[in-house]
Every structure is written in structure tokens, then in C-alpha cells.
């Protein structure tokens, strides 16, 4: 296509939208609704995931060693564990530290309790590694691996919590994917409908264009411009709406349920929108393009 035709194509695309204003507005409205929902869903998921990450960080695995194990062997075990990809953190807790933590957690007067036992550490054989994983899904395999290392007496993990968090994580992932796919299909269908009406209204004009010798690309281009513009407007509106709403909603929620603030950290708007804005605009333009491209391919065959 020539450069001089691009201006013409754009004018025709905008003309199509104006001539077909009601349907164009309906399409824009649907995309706004879909992408707005998408944005809300995305915001919820991102926050939910970040919360899960926090919980995951708190799910730890404790590894205890055989009685009378040598320090060198503990170092060897440490190396074997540390080289695993799924390990996020690894801390060594010596027997003394373990006793200190235990006494502080379980006695009203830990100092007195420690004096009672004197030099005899009741947890003498309870030195351990405390490990957190990057993703709790791997926990079962990891526990099996660590248990098989020589010198490891016992591996303690919270199988129940880990499984639940992993399952929830997966569920949220699949559910959001499903909803998003449905929303996209609806949007593409509606754009396709709008373009079909535009093509039907201009059937005569299109036939004349083709008889005069217009290339298929030339005939299609205004409709594709129309689709992309609808997608662009339809995605810009929810971007603006979501941007102004996000902080307001968080402030409202935190103000209303102040308890949330201590256990839940909201993802800041900046971080969220850095990803969300290009994503929404890209999706809007993408469905606009795809919808019009498929429709023109189907209806403009001669």
C-alpha cells in the first residue's frame, strides 16, 4: 500500500465508525466492560498472588540431623540442599539457638528454665536447617530428596498448608485464565459483528471497488483500522477508570477493615499499572485487529 493511501484509509476507517455509530459504541462499550473486568480481575490476582507469596515465604521445612553428627557433614548436607533450584532461603539453627527459642516460647520465665537445666541442653540433638521454597508446589519432591540424604534424621514440613496454598494458587490461575478467554471471545465476536454490519452496508461500494481493481488489502484496510480504533478506545477508557479507582478502592478497604493492613500488603498502583496499561492497550488493539481481520477475510472473498 502506498503512503498516500494511508491517510485515505484512516479517514475511511473513522467514517465507518461514525456511519455505524450505534454499533461501534456498542462494541466499544463491550470492550470497555470486558477489559475493565479483566483489569479488576488482574488487580485481584496480582494482590492475591503477592499474598500467597508471603504465605509461601512463611511455610518452612525443618531438617534435623542424626545424633552426634560432625560439623563437616552438616556442611556437606548444606551444600547439597543449597544447590537445589527450588530453595529460596536456608538458615542454620544450632542446638543452643533452638533451646533458646523453645524456652522463650514455652516458659513464663525462660531465664529460670535455662538455669534449671544449666549446661545440659535438652535439645542437644536438635540443630536444624530451616528452609523456605520458592514455590510450595515442589515441597513433596523436595522433602523426599532431603530425607534421602545421609545424616538427615527427620524432615518436618507442613504438608497440609503447603498443599492448600499450592492448590489455591493453581485454582486462581486456571479460573482467571478461563474467565479471560471467555471475555476475549465475546469481544472478538462483537467486533466481528460490527465490522460485518459495516461490510453489509457498504457491499455495493466494495463490489465497485473490486471491479475497479482495488487490491484486497486496500478494501480490507479501512475495516481493520476501524477494528483497531474500536479496540484502542475500548481499552483506553478502562485504563483511565482503573487507574483512578485502584488507590481509592485500597484506601476504602484499608480504612474499613484496618485489620487487613497488618496481614496483607497491597501491591502499589505504580507496580501494577506498569504491567496493566500496556497489557490492556495491547489486548484492546489485538482483539480489534483480530476481530476485523477475521471478519474481512470471511466476507470480502471475491
Amino acid at each position, binding site marked *: 500500500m502506498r503512503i*498516500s*493511501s494511508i491517510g485515505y484509509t484512516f479517514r475511511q476507517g473513522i467514517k465507518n465508525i461514525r456511519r455505524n455509530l450505534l454499533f461501534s459504541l456498542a462494541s466499544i462499550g463491550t470492550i470497555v466492560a470486558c477489559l475493565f473486568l479483566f483489569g479488576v480481575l488482574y488487580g485481584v490476582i496480582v494482590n492475591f498472588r503477592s499474598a500467597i507469596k508471603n504465605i509461601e515465604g512463611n511455610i518452612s521445612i525443618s531438617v534435623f540431623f542424626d545424633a552426634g553428627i560432625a560439623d563437616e557433614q552438616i556442611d556437606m548436607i548444606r551444600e547439597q540442599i543449597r544447590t537445589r533450584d527450588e530453595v529460596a532461603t536456608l538458615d542454620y539453627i544450632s542446638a543452643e539457638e533452638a533451646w533458646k527459642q523453645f524456652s522463650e516460647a514455652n516458659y513464663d520465665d525462660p531465664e529460670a528454665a535455662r538455669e534449671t537445666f544449666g549446661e545440659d541442653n535438652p535439645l542437644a540433638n536438635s540443630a536444624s536447617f530451616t528452609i523456605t521454597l520458592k514455590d510450595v508446589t515442589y515441597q513433596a519432591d523436595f522433602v523426599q530428596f532431603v530425607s534421602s540424604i545421609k545424616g538427615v534424621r527427620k524432615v518436618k514440613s507442613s504438608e497440609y498448608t503447603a498443599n492448600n496454598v499450592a492448590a489455591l494458587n493453581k485454582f486462581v490461575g486456571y479460573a482467571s485464565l478461563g474467565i479471560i478467554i471467555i471475555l476475549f471471545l465475546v469481544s472478538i465476536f462483537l467486533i466481528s459483528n460490527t465490522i460485518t454490519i459495516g461490510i453489509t452496508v457498504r457491499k*455495493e*461500494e466494495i463490489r465497485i471497488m473490486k*471491479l*475497479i*481493481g*482495488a487490491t484486497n488489502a*486496500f*478494501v480490507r484496510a479501512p475495516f481493520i483500522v476501524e477494528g483497531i480504533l474500536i479496540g484502542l478506545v475500548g481499552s483506553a477508557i478502562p485504563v483511565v477508570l482503573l487507574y483512578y479507582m485502584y488507590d481509592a478502592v485500597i484506601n476504602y478497604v484499608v480504612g474499613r477493615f484496618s485489620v487487613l493492613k497488618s496481614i496483607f500488603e497491597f501491591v502499589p498502583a505504580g507496580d501494577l499499572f506498569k504491567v496493566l496499561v500496556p497489557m490492556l492497550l495491547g489486548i484492546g488493539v489485538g482483539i480489534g485487529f483480530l476481530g476485523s481481520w477475521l471478519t474481512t477475510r470471511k466476507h470480502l472473498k471475491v
Partner: protein
Amino acid sequence: MITLENVTMKYPTGTVALKDVSLHIDKGEFVFIVGSSGSGKTTLLELLVRELVPTKGKIEVAGYNYNKLKKRQIPKVRRKLGFVFQNFRLIKDRTVYENVAFAQRVIETPARYIRRQVPAMLTVVGLADKYKSYPRQLSGGEQQRVALARALVNKPDIILADEPTGNLDSKNTWEVMNLLEDINAKGTTVVVVTHNKEIVNAMKKRVIMLKKGVIISDVEKGGYIDED
């Protein structure tokens, strides 16, 4: 310029619109194709513009062998053809100027040529002063002359006119036919499908007569033969 060899067109419904038709039209000829409705005239035109693909036979137009034509070459062939329809087929929400310019835009003619050629073409068809009018403000004859300007502005090798005078009174009919004759005199091949006996008989051009999908006569300087 136009060659058909043993062309048969059978529609999926089973109707045979053209049966084993062969004909040849030379460059610069003026030809009438006549026949009653259902004779296959319109099918013949649709084959020539490649809106239809024949069931059998060979078609060659303006140097393009349609049997070997690739899809992306179709626009190229059509740019060598100019069309005139019975019902004008102007775009109603565009002015006379825009309707003619449209033909150049769709083949991506640079804007500076459009600005020069469209007024020149409107002068040829005698509508230079009406360039701002919309089709509904024009008479049938004027609309057909706009359509003619649109067909001519891309300087086609062949003009195909489908009942160009079907919706016109006698005076406008002659204006349009005279224009077509002028264009032909300047070297453009003209093919007119019609059943207007008066003009066919008066103009003494080559007349090809179709009946039920078969050529029943092909006469130089002929007239309209009554089928019965």
C-alpha cells in the same frame, strides 16, 4: 483483446448460462452483445471481469490468460477494464468529484494526478460544473455520464457497459452512446450489452447475438435481429 474459447458456464444450481461459447474481439472494436434476458449476456460480462470462473473453456482478456491467473493478479486485470452499469452504481454519499476520484484512489493513484485527471475527465463527459453535486441531484443521464467518467479516468483498454442506457430516456441514451463512440474512436475497445434495438440498428456496429447461452449470430455492421 478479448478471446473466449469453448466457454461453458454451469451454475451450481444446474442452470447452464453459457454453452460452448467462442468469440474474439480485437483491440479498438465497438461491439454490441444482444439477446433477451436469460440469454447469458450478464454471465458473459461477469466472466470477463473474473467475478465468475467458467466451468470449462479458456478466457483471455487484455493479455491475461484467466486460466492461469493468480488471485493477486485479478486487480491488475480489472484495472485494464472500465465498467458502466445500468443503474449507474454511484456512491450516494459522495459528490460527483469524489465518485470519479474514488476510482483513482482505489488503485492508489498519487493525489496530485487525481487532482489533475478528475476535472479533465468531468470536462470530457460535460459535467465540469457539477463536480460538487451529489448523485441524487443529477438526472439519470448525468449520473450515467459520471459513471462513464469513473470508468474512463483510469484509462482502461476496454470499456464494458451493461445495459448503459436501460434507465435513460432517448435524448440521454444518445448522449451516452455518442460518448462511448468518441471513446472508441480514441482507441478504447468498447463492449456494450444491451437490448435497445434502436441504438443497435442505428449505429451499425458489430453485433453478437446470444440466445439461451449460445451465440446465434455474429455480424459486422449488423442490426438487431428479432429472435422470433
